[in-house]
């Protein structure tokens, strides 16, 4: 084969490869990239009550800074994020260790453990709505039969965020556990053997050897959960719609309501772009952390 013929086949191959990715790329540009640019533009517009649209400069963003509801939403979003992530990482690592020491896991047990996060969050919200009903729910009955005071759960402005965190943690702790279990199974067994020979206690082995080696996996799980937690929507929208009052009005819920209940598309765009920046900022920060703990 001559040189020109070889380049020709190579060029042809490049073209064929481009043609293979083209549908996915064109689809993503049409459905994501272009709409996001459009959202950025919408963020500089105001819409009058008659639907007339005009350029507003940075008005939507200066409104955001003075909007009490935005700062409240940001606080709720961060509180829910920190609380849920802490619960899911702590119990996820615990559950992973329990599963790891069980050695043999029948398929049925695995199916059981993945069932919470494979069902729609909306369904999780529906079932917990019934279980946590303040007057007739099973949860308060159980509390009272142990002599504990009943709670208003989702109907209480104080408890609604911890309750939502609890529901989400019920759903996603097994997911974190299975990721961490994968990390545990890929650790070289030789490190444990060495620790055992040195006579290290199980606690010391975990604290000094297992945990540091697991950190990259745990940070990965944290990244995957953070993306969902910072844009929390489904469970809150189906159970409280941001209530009672505005006690569970996360940024995503607030942005959605500004856009589709009050039809203030311009301001909603500014809100959602801000939330998107927060999500990507968190992912980048965690990614650097993962780089720092990698071995």
């Amino acid at each position, binding site marked *: 084969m001559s040189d020109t013929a070889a380049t020709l086949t190579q060029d042809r191959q490049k073209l064929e490869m481009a043609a293979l990715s083209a549908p996915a790329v064109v*689809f993503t540009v049409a459905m994501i990239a272009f709409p996001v640019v459009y959202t950025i533009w919408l963020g500089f517009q105001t819409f009058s009550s008659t639907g007339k649209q005009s350029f507003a400069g940075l008005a939507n963003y200066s409104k955001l800074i003075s909007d009490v509801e935005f700062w409240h939403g940001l606080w709720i979003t961060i509180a829910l994020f920190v609380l849920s992530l802490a619960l899911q990482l702590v119990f996820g690592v615990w559950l992973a260790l329990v599963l790891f020491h069980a050695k043999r896991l029948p398929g049925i047990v695995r199916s059981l453990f993945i069932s919470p996060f494979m069902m729609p*969050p909306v369904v999780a919200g529906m079932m917990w709505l019934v279980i946590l009903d303040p007057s007739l729910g099973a949860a308060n009955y159980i509390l009272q039969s142990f002599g504990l005071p009943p709670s208003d759960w989702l109907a209480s402005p104080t408890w609604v965020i911890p309750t939502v965190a609890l529901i989400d943690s019920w759903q996603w702790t097994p997911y974190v556990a299975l990721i961490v279990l994968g990390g545990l199974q890929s650790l070289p067994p030789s490190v444990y053997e060495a620790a055992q020979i040195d006579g290290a206690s199980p606690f010391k082995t975990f604290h000094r050897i297992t945990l540091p080696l697991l950190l990259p*996996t745990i940070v990965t799980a944290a990244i995957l959960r953070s993306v969902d937690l910072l844009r929390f929507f489904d469970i809150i929208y189906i159970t409280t719609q941001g209530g009672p009052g505005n006690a569970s009005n996360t940024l995503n819920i607030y942005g959605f309501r500004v856009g589709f209940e009050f039809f203030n598309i311009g301001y909603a765009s500014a809100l959602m772009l801000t939330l998107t920046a927060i999500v990507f900022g968190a992912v980048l920060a965690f990614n650097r952390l993962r780089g720092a703990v990698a071995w």
Partner: protein
Amino acid sequence: MTDAANTDRWIRRLNLVQLVLAGAIIMAPTVWMVLSSFKPSFEVTAYPPTLVFTPTLENYVELTRTTPFLSYALNSLIVTVGSTALGLMFGIPAAFAVSWTRISWPAILTLAARMAPGTLFLLPWYVMFRQVGMIGSYTALILSHAVITLPIVIWVLLPSFDGIPRSVFEAAQVDGCSVTRILWRIALPLVASGVAVSAILAFVFSWNYFLFALVLSNGDTKTLIAAAFNFIGEGSTQWGALMAAATLIALPPLVLAALVQRWLVSGLTLGAVKG
């Protein structure tokens, strides 16, 4: 020596207790939902709650009688199957090209799209789809849900394609096979199980997705998930029917997930963890 064996046995017992405890906490709410859906209506709201009752199908009958449950289910099926098919159609060749060329930006582009909050796209989609009169159409719903399915297909399939030895492709190239032919005739059969897992995961996440259908569907095209509100609204005390609806909505993803549970975890982390 017997001392060590004794401690060992105790540790194993303690571990089993913890495993059973975790299993019970994970299972209890789902079991309660299913039980409640089979309770006679007067017993669903009984306080103290009852565990022993005569099971009945009245809640399911009530659900199909008072709500268009079956047409919602059909809408869900159309949108989910459509978006899964679209995700596979676009995702399989893209994953193959990324794996072959090592040019990864198309894959990263779709992943970034999955990380942004859905409302970010929903706002411009709403404005654009309204302008062309597509709000409430299956097309708008399928296109929006394909945004969910496409990155799943690409990222689940990438490691599968990466796992095929390069020599297989090189041999085919020497034989004069075009790239497209290599994909469909040689590579695809080798990653068939990966395709199945990606299709099931795409189906599950598209079925479960709430936000887009909430805005882009109308009375005729409403999916089950978007209609969940109606079930809650139509009877704050109709818990039986509500739990029957919840059980039926959760059934397809749970059955599918159980089928591929062994391969699920590595797929769910979108390649971040080798599990």
